[in-house]
Structures are given as structure tokens and as C-alpha cells.
């Protein structure tokens, strides 16, 4: 099969916040940039981010990047890399002001400065009291950000490949990354996009769970491509459960509801977060609230006929505050929970929301992997030509648990940082390396296998089985026997996923084929998550493990690396040393 080729300075895969921020930087530097996206850029999942961008502007009272850093390290349950966290929180205000200058319609204070709302886990003076740090545009911060960045990219003449799906990463014999293969949905044709630098900004993989707030496009495409190309995946056992997904639907009720004064009740009408987090109460870190909710349900204090949800009360805020500060919430509650929150509380459950792990990078957005050369091993050798940013990357700033608002901060800061690294790399490496002759071989083999498969497995059924297995075996509460069974099951499902079949053999907009190719990525994310979770014998951040209820820093203060090849694990140290600040030493995490 002859595969067409096109060449660019940089290929960016994914057009959410991280991809768009990076592409803008690259295009404005005069580079030729191709951005691939499965959907129109402004329909990327970043559009769903309601809460805001965490940045210590200090517009609502005293604030400091050091406090933001402390909250992020503590929120991460000390698994976050402190150099990357310092970098992020110090860059954050600059990135917010940049967006403001790009025309982002932030909410304003009466004095004209950017309004900032309180958000779970963010505090003043190292945990003393809540601080207002979230820069927002009503409940549509992600939407406003995507539109602002997309318009800037159009102005900068970024080239968009819309309804294109990247299929595989291209590496040469030295390991350098030289672009991707990609499928144009409209024609069904495959193309090689030869790039001097390749950036993945493909978002998360929440669709490996049955109950998730993630959109259908969040299938972990970057993770699958990286894993197949020999890149390990980092800390994939850490999944954030958002405390307030609408029970039965997955749709998110933003933390802003609690920021504005809403709170959780159990079936007895008790405001139970007062017991679990006496200081921050309902504004404690997401994992703390999710674990508290899961405990209430497990111990029989859940509401509803099956006692399987809690109640989010906001009627006391009054219709005016709800309409003005939380305008989308009333409609969501009516549509998906069939209640009006102006009168009744919303039934909510912890729901998979965010992937803390991902493709390992440093704080410059460069992908790093363990390597052995010149007689010494380096746990973080840079993979030349390969970069990642946003949810698909693990810098790691979120560690074992991400603070609300830090996802938008992450994608802005590291989207730009990765682009700056690319610009420097291209200046230092002016040539273009040739592609290996067999560059498209892996993709061609995958497609030939799929097209030629007979008596194969149904993509829908295998996908369902992945989601059921992850939900049942890898939730907030984790049990060793269930995890062990989960590993066995997910390996069996991986075997089935290698034999998927699509009946529709057409080329033009064959969505069955696209979904089969997405499944190849989902299974890698799921396997990495389950295997990593089974091995980590401690409770840290997002999850609680039944046989090891506490954090165990002496054995487990380390990052997991999962390799597809051999389905095996390695570990690497956490960066405890910040860039300039003092190390924030691990301590018991209370709110």
C-alpha cells in the first residue's frame, strides 16, 4: 500500500486547550504546524471545563504562588514532582494575563480585575483558610478558552486537519520521533505526517470506565500510540473521581456549586463533610470528598431507594445566585436528574473525571523515558522530537490527585512550555531526518488485520467489557482480590481486543472502523491502569486500598511506569526538589 506523505515542522495531535496553546506558540514562531483533531477544535473536551483556571493573581485577597504550590503538592498527596509544580504555579498568572490580552471574556470585579472564585483544596497561608484563586468565565471557562485560542490560531495561520485520527507514532532506529500516521475520516485514506517535532495533546481516557464525566472522544489515543511505540505510561493507577457526577448519568456538577456555598448531605440530612474535613468541609480536595462520599454510601448512609447516592443541596443559595453564578446547573439537574435544584437537592455520586497519569514528561513538556547509555542509567532521558502536554501527559503536577482548576492551568502552562521546547529543539536541529522506509508498517499491519479479520470480536461488546471491568475492579475503593481478578480479566479482554472485527468494509466515513481503532487505544489505557493499580500496595490520593489504608512513603513514594511490551512495571523517583523553593516535606494530609 502506497501511503501519501506530507511534511511539517511540527505536528500537534489534539486540538483541546493544550494543543491549541502549543500550536499558537509554534505558528507565531513562523513554523509550519499541522494540528490533527477527531472533531472540530472547539468541540474538544476542554469545552466542558466549567470551574476556572487556578492562578495566584491575588485579586480577591492576598495570595502567593508558594501557597498555590503548597496546595498542589498537598493535593497530589506528595506524588507530584515539585520542580514541575513550582514551574506551573509561577507561570500560571502570566498565562492568565496572556489569555486576557487575547480577549478571553473573564468574569470581572467592580474594579475591572479578573474575578476569582473559591475552589476545593485551594488555601491561603499553607492550608489555613480557603482562598479565591480560580479565574473563570461564568461556568464556561473551557468554552471561552477554546474559542479564544482557536481564533488566535486562525489568525496565526495554523493548519487544521479536522476529522483526522492519528493512528501511530513514527520512530526511527535511534528512537527519535518523526511524526505520525493518520486516517482522514472523509476518505478513509491513511497519510504519513512527517514532522521534525511531534506533540501529543490528546486528552484523557475516561471512557475506559462505565461511569465518567468524559465525552465519547476521550479514548486515550495518545496513550495507545505511545504505548505501541515503546513509550511507558506513568502513574496510570491514579484516576480522579469527581465528587459530584449526577447519579446514573455521569454528567458533572461543577465544584463551583460548593465554591458558591452548596454542600453535601447524607440520607439523614447530615452535612457529613464536617466530620471528614473540619476546616475546608465541602471544599476539601476532590479525593477527600469522593472517599468520604464512598464511605457514607458503603456504611449505609447513602440516599435514595438503593442508598447509592448523596445529596447536593443548593436551594438555600436562592434562585438568583444559582442563575447568576451557576447558570448551567439548574438545567443539568432538571434534564439528567429530573429535579429542580432551586427546590430539591441533586443526587450525586463520585464519577471518573480525570486521568492523573499519562505519557511521562519533564516540566518542559519533553517526553522522558528510562534509558541506559555510556555505562549509566538515566530514569528520564529525553525522547528526541517527542512532546506531550495536557491530560495525556504526566509532568507530573497532579501526582495522585489533581486540584480543581489545575487542569486548565496545566494545559496552558505545559502547552506553551512544550512549544517553547520544540522551538528550541528545531533551532538546534535544523535538518529533517529521513523517515524509515517501513514507517507506516505498523499502521498498515493494524488496518490489514482489522479489514481481514473473520470470526472476530464485536467492538461494542469488547468496549463494554473494558468499561464494566474497570468500574467494578478499579474504583475509589480497591480490594486486593478484586484487583488481581481485574488484571486477569483485562488481560483476557486485551486478547479479545486484538481480534476485533468490523463488518462494514467501506472507506468513506466508516465510523465502525474508527471505533475499532479507538478501542486499540482504550485497551492500552485500561491495562496500564489495572496492572499499575494492582501493584501499588498503599492508599494515596484518589483511591483507598482495603489492605493498605494508609500512604506508605517509605515504599511507595515513587512513580509507576507501565510498559506494553511484556505488560510490566518499573518505577522512578518523585522529584522532591523544587526549582527554587524549599521542598514541601511529606506529612499527613488533612483538610
Amino acid at each position, binding site marked *: 500500500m502506497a501511503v501519501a506523505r506530507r511534511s511539517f515542522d511540527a505536528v500537534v495531535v489534539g486540538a483541546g486547550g493544550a494543543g491549541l496553546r502549543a500550536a499558537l506558540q509554534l505558528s507565531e514562531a513562523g513554523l509550519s504546524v499541522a494540528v490533527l483533531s477527531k472533531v472540530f477544535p472547539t468541540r474538544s473536551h476542554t469545552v466542558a471545563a466549567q470551574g476556572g483556571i487556578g492562578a495566584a493573581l491575588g485579586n480577591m485577597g492576598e495570595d502567593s504562588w508558594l501557597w498555590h504550590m503548597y496546595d498542589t503538592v498537598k493535593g497530589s498527596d506528595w506524588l507530584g514532582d515539585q520542580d514541575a509544580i513550582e514551574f506551573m504555579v509561577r507561570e500560571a498568572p502570566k498565562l492568565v494575563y496572556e489569555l486576557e490580552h487575547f480577549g478571553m471574556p473573564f468574569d470581572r470585579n467592580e474594579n475591572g480585575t479578573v474575578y476569582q472564585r473559591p475552589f476545593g483544596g485551594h488555601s491561603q497561608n499553607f492550608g489555613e483558610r480557603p482562598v479565591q484563586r480560580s479565574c473563570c468565565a461564568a461556568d464556561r471557562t473551557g468554552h471561552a478558552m477554546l474559542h479564544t485560542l482557536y481564533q488566535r490560531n486562525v489568525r496565526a495561520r495554523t493548519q487544521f486537519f479536522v476529522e483526522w485520527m492519528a493512528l501511530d507514532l513514527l520512530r526511527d532506529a535511534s528512537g527519535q520521533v518523526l511524526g505520525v500516521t493518520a486516517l482522514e475520516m472523509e476518505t478513509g485514506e491513511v497519510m504519513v505526517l512527517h514532522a521534525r517535532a511531534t506533540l501529543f495533546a490528546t486528552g484523557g481516557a475516561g471512557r475506559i470506565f462505565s461511569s465518567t464525566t468524559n465525552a465519547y472522544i476521550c479514548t486515550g489515543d495518545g496513550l495507545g500510540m505511545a504505548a505501541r511505540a515503546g513509550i511507558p505510561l506513568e502513574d496510570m493507577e491514579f484516576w480522579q473521581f469527581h465528587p459530584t457526577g449526577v447519579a446514573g448519568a455521569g454528567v458533572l456538577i461543577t465544584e463551583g456549586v460548593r465554591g458558591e456555598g452548596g454542600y453535601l448531605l447524607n440520607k439523614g440530612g447530615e452535612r457529613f463533610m464536617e466530620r471528614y474535613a473540619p476546616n475546608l468541609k465541602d471544599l476539601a480536595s476532590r479525593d477527600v470528598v469522593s472517599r468520604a462520599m464512598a464511605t457514607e454510601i458503603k456504611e449505609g448512609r447513602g440516599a435514595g431507594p438503593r442508598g447509592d447516592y448523596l445529596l447536593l443541596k443548593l436551594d438555600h443559595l436562592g434562585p438568583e445566585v444559582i442563575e447568576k453564578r451557576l*447558570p448551567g446547573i439548574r*438545567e443539568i439537574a432538571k434534564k439528567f436528574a429530573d429535579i429542580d435544584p432551586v427546590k430539591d437537592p441533586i443526587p450525586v455520586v463520585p464519577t471518573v473525571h480525570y486521568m492523573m497519569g499519562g505519557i511521562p514528561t519533564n516540566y518542559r513538556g519533553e517526553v522522558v523515558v528510562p534509558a541506559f547509555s555510556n555505562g549509566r542509567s538515566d530514569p528520564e532521558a529525553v525522547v528526541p522530537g517527542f512532546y506531550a502536554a495536557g491530560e495525556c501527559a504526566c509532568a507530573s503536577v497532579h501526582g495522585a490527585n489533581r486540584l480543581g482548576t489545575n487542569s486548565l492551568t496545566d494545559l496552558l502552562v505545559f502547552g506553551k512550555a512544550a512549544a517553547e521546547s520544540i522551538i528550541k529543539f528545531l533551532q538546534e536541529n535544523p535538518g529533517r531526518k529521513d523517515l524509515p522506509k517501513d514507517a507506516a508498517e505498523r499502521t498498515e499491519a493494524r488496518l490489514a488485520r482489522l479489514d481481514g479479520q473473520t470470526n472476530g470480536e464485536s467492538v461494542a461488546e469488547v468496549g463494554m467489557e473494558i468499561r464494566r471491568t474497570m468500574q467494578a475492579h478499579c474504583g475509589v475503593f480497591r480490594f486486593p482480590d478484586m484487583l488481581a481478578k481485574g488484571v486477569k480479566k483485562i488481560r483476557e479482554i486485551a486478547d479479545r481486543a486484538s481480534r476485533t472485527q468490523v463488518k462494514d468494509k467501506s472507506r468513506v466515513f466508516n465510523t465502525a472502523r474508527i471505533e475499532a481503532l479507538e478501542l486499540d487505544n482504550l485497551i492500552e489505557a485500561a491495562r496500564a491502569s489495572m496492572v499499575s493499580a494492582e501493584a501499588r500496595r498503599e492508599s494515596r490520593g484518589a483511591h483507598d486500598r482495603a489492605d493498605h489504608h494508609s500512604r506508605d512513603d517509605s515504599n511507595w513514594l515513587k512513580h509507576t511506569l507501565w510498559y506494553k511490551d511484556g505488560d510490566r512495571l518499573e518505577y522512578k523517583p518523585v522529584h522532591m526538589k523544587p526549582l527554587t523553593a524549599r521542598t514541601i516535606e511529606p506529612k499527613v494530609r488533612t483538610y
Partner: protein
Amino acid sequence: MNMTNAEMNRLRWSCRRGLLENELVLERFLHAHAALLEGERLAAFKTLLGYGDDELWDLVSGRRECGDPALGEVVRLLRNC
């Protein structure tokens, strides 16, 4: 409904959105009303799919009224999904 397989697939793909809320409603809509999608209704549905996610959700959730009479019927069907 006179759509080819590719046209229907293209339509289904356009129902992939950034907001899960929209995806759930659009999925319910296609499940219930795909057979109705022809002529003016199909044109209206395609117009709505061209909207941004928040704009579409505003219409679907009733947060905003639809100013275009040509879209009214499909918006009503979506609101009931």
C-alpha cells in the same frame, strides 16, 4: 430516510461533542427520531450540529429560546429527549 450509510455515519460523528450532556441527548434523539430525519428536519438537525457545544446545550436545555422558526421542531424534539 434516504441517507446513505456514509451520510448517516457522518451525522453520527457530528454527534461526538466536547460536552457529554449534548452527546447523551443527541444519542437519545437519534435512537428515537432517526427515521424522521429528512428534508427540512434533516437540514435543521445539521444546522444545530454546526453550533458550538454551549450554544447547542443552551437551546437543548431551554436556557435560551430558539430564534429561528426553521429549527423549532427539532429543538422541541431534542428538549424532550
